[in-house]
């Protein structure tokens, strides 16, 4: 890539000469994000920034790429000397001359090597376009030798794009991205099965209040207190009117199962959101600050990993007898979010933090808040979604486990139904076990968790770019 022919670098040079250093640094940062191994970009960047340490760093990067570039060497020596005092304005006034008219250096890289470098740089282009959610669009770079253009229009974003247009652009981009991800998601039929299962349970959750208010008389079908005088004895196998029979207290099993769907959803979704939020915050903090912060967070996560969540939930349930599904979900999410989720997500976030575009963002002057919210969090978001789905499964099993002891005040739960069948359902009696209670409850349990698990597998394909066909 000949720098004299690259319009972006030329434009940046002109911006610097015009005194628009900030704009030039942003432009160069974008360019470096796409082509991290371009020495000229690093070199020109050293003119765009005022801080001495940063200048030295940037020049060293340029020298790493091509140690033979004598322009860079000379400038580095000059800046490193103690006599050099950089002040932004003075430099702009007194050094109009040495700002490079980027000339192709004589000691050029061998073509084969350059090819390698370019090849190494391309994956970053891909990750950047998949990662920076609506942050920036890649610069229009013309790598081929194009006819020499002498004048360039410097975009003034504030004037050209109004806020409405920006929102529109972002909406379009995210809509297209959603469409693409959906296409990948749909490729695996198991994920579709998962979605269907979740939709089915959502339907059940909605159906219960409707049925209670229209078809089912409350006295007979109430999930907690219902009793049917016309059926004897209880528990009864399926009879007309009670599709799944009744339990030992004379309650309709179908009604109980439907009523248990909503609390289960609440537990699962609360746990998922808590896990995702805590895991994201901790892992991103660890990955950004690294060093001591990272050590502390990792070790804390290891400690949290040791906590046996169901047992702790049983203890808490014994203490606060009025625990609803919301609190249980919150608690489960806290323990797993700070434990396993943080460990998994931190591994990913650290990898992302080491990528060149993060460095570019640093050099362009992005503060911690900007980098974390605009670069790190969008990159770990798919993984967070995956962890959410897994947390749903875990939370539902743990919830069933503790309602299995009748510790919570949840009116009924699939775990409770199984427990009731074990305890009161005359399980080893002469009539045989109450299959009409056991099988539907156990099946609901498996299928609900399975639905979320299958969706998480589909999301995994979306989250890991290496599994995609288009890379």
């Amino acid at each position, binding site marked *: 890539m000949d720098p004299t022919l690259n319009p972006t670098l030329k434009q940046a040079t002109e911006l610097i000469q015009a005194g628009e250093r900030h704009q030039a640094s942003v432009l160069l940062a974008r360019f470096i994000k796409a082509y991290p191994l371009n020495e000229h970009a690093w070199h020109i960047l050293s003119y765009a920034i005022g801080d001495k340490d940063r200048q030295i760093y940037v020049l060293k990067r340029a020298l790493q790429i091509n140690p033979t570039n004598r322009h860079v060497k000379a400038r580095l020596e000059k800046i490193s000397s103690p006599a050099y005092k950089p002040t932004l304005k003075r430099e702009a006034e007194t050094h109009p001359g040495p700002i490079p008219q980027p000339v192709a250096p004589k000691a050029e890289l061998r073509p084969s090597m350059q090819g390698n470098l370019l090849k190494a740089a391309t994956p970053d282009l891909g990750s950047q376009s998949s990662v920076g959610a609506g942050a920036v669009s890649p610069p229009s770079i013309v790598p081929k030798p194009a006819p020499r253009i002498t004048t360039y229009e410097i975009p003034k974003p504030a004037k050209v794009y109004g806020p409405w247009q920006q929102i529109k652009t972002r909406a379009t981009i995210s809509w297209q991205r959603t469409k693409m991800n959906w296409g990948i998601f749909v490729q695996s039929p198991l994920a579709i099965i998962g979605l269907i299962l979740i939709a089915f349970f959502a339907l059940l959750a909605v159906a219960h209040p409707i049925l209670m208010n229209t078809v089912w008389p409350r006295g007979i079908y109430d999930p907690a207190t219902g009793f049917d005088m016309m059926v004897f004895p209880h528990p009864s196998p399926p009879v007309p009117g009670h599709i799944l029979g009744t339990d030992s207290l004379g309650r309709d099993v179908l009604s109980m199962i439907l009523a248990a769907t909503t609390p289960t959803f609440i537990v699962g979704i609360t746990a998922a959101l808590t896990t995702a939020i805590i895991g994201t915050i901790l892992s991103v903090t660890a990955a950004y600050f690294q060093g001591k912060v990272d050590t502390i967070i990792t070790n804390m996560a290891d400690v949290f990993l040791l906590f046996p969540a169901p047992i702790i939930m049983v203890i808490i349930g014994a203490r606060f007898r009025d625990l609803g599904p919301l609190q249980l979900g919150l608690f489960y999410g806290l323990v797993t979010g700070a434990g396993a989720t943080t460990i*998994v997500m931190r591994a990913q976030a650290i990898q992302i933090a080491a990528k060149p575009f993060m460095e570019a963002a640093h050099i362009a002057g992005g503060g911690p808040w900007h980098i974390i919210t605009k670069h790190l969090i969008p990159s770990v978001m798919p993984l967070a979604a995956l962890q959410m789905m897994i947390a749903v499964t875990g939370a539902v099993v743990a919830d069933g486990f503790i309602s299995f002891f009748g510790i919570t005040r949840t009116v009924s739960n699939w775990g409770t139904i199984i427990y009731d069948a074990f305890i009161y359902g005359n399980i080893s009696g002469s009539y045989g076990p109450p299959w009409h209670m056991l099988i539907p409850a156990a099946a609901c349990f498996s299928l609900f968790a399975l639905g979320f698990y299958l969706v998480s597998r589909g999301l995994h394909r979306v989250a890991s770019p290496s599994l995609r066909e288009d890379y």
Partner: protein
Amino acid sequence: MTRYLIRQTLLSIIKLFVFISFMFFFIQIMMPGDFIDQYSLFCNAECRENLRAQLGLDLPIWQRYLQWLRQIITLDLGISLHGEPIIQTLKLVIPATLLVFVTGTIIAFLIGLWLGKRTAWQGSALLSRTATLGGLTLYTTFPPWLTWLLTYLFTKGAGFVVMGEVGGLVQLAFVGLDRHIWADVEIDPSVIAFRMVLTLAVCALFFYLVKNVVDEFTRRSSPGIIFLGLILAGTVGSWYLLDMQMLAFDIMKLAWIPLATYILLTFGETMMIMQSSMDEVMKSEYITTAKAKGLPDSVVLERHAARNALLPVISRLVISLPYLITGVVIIESSTDWPGMGTKMWNALYWQDMPLVMNTLLIVGVLSLVARLLLDVVTAYLDPRIRYGERQTPSN
């Protein structure tokens, strides 16, 4: 590597300390009532106070904590509130747990690896989809229900205990052993169980090494099923050598239900991780190269794909290890298996805090040791990982 291990060990001890201290305060503050309340039906307030003073339960919690710390630092686990030395109790209980969960983890791991490998290799064939769906359904099954189903189907419900109905109060025992066999045997069943674990571990290690040597020598991977058979035969053979075959088989007759439950519940997870890991590996170019070289499929699968796919599985195993230990409680209590889980659960139910805390301590130690071992295994499998060297930022 040594430096890394020493550092990790020290860190592990600190982590263990934090964990155990938190659990101490958490359980004691959170649980309503205490040990005396569980037994004081016919006891007035004065009598309760006397009992509390006898057991040292009237001290403020931080004093109890310091006492307990002093005990465990001198490696003395003390006496449970029921009056039995805790070390003795744990000696009786740990082998049973190891028998089910070490064996179960290894078998589930192998099954999961094999299935994951096969299903990923065959892609979207109907059979592999069915296997995936089946494994995941089992993975998300409600554990007590699966235990009950197995017990019901194979023993007509004998030996099933509903959790929460606390079984053995003080002394757990292997319920249902054949009296005729054990009549003139002086050794405790738990000792036999421990020997069974030991023989299995030794055989597995020995035959694994043999397999490695043979593979190196013949330069192709030999079928694993033969080696599994050899391990099995070796273990059973060593039982005959130690002259405990009848006793061991009798224990196995009881052990297989928790073992089977555990395997069915957990192999799905390994399978799933192996699948996704294989998916990623098979997209890489060296697999294409290996195929293009004309290597047979089995070699590409075993040597090129599966080996590289193994790493994420192992690192994931590290994370799910503590969950396995939670599973111990659920599965053991449902089958009345006299292991650590049942013991801890019963102790928690009766609020026998010294026993609960020391069992948790052992659980923590075991899982951290397993973690360190897995670290070593990972370093052995992956030449790219070098612990202990400071990683330079990739400039």
